[in-house]
């Protein structure tokens, strides 16, 4: 019974990820794709959490925090590239 609830949740999150993948492929601007990829990462967090409940293990709990941090850093890097054209400036207050 409980397993069925978990698998239904995984199914619905997978459907949400399919919708997000549609937005990644179809999205008219790059910003749409970046936001969709960020949301895919967060959905992946919930999939990992549900699967680790199904498998009755706590070995994947570090992965959840890891995906969250990586999604954050990736989104920040991409949005900075979109805004400024560079990801890391040498001197922010200088002329470069």
């Amino acid at each position, binding site marked *: 019974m409980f397993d069925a609830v978990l698998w239904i949740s995984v199914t619905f999150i997978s459907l949400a990820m399919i919708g997000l993948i549609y937005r990644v492929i179809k999205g008219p601007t790059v910003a749409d794709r970046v936001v969709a990829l960020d949301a895919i990462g967060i959905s992946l967090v919930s999939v990992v959490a549900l699967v680790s409940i199904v498998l009755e293990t706590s070995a994947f709990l570090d992965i959840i925090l890891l995906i969250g941090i990586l999604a954050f850093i990736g989104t920040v890097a991409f949005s900075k590239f979109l805004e400024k054209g560079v990801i890391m400036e040498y001197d922010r207050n*200088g002329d470069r």
Partner: protein
Amino acid sequence: MKTNDIILQTVTKFTLFVIILFSIHLFFAGHYYPGGGFIGGLMTSGAIVLLLLAFDIKTVKMILPVDYLKVVAVGLLFAIGTGAGALFFDKPFLTHAYTYAYLPLLGKTSLHTAVLFDTGVFLVVIGVTMTIIQTIGESE
């Protein structure tokens, strides 16, 4: 054009400590749980990359005045040193030793020389990733 990244910089100042603590946890949990020197070093360099994103390369060099190539060298010395240390006790190269110690604050703790080897892996991973990222970031 000067941009004001106050939200990104403030979030970075808080999140940095969480990421560093998580990487230290991953590093020390590596013997009994998933983790270890490789993923811990990657997360630490991820924290430094977040610092590089929120600020600039010059500021990060002022905060962390570290030559990352020397970090690689020190890491390799750690790995070779723990390997060669076994030779002094008439054991084969890279033989590890462990003991259980009763530390004042931590209680019963297992001290293993594999941690020193893992420290070498940690430092090499930080050094290599940060060298790659800084070299690419500085080139115009």
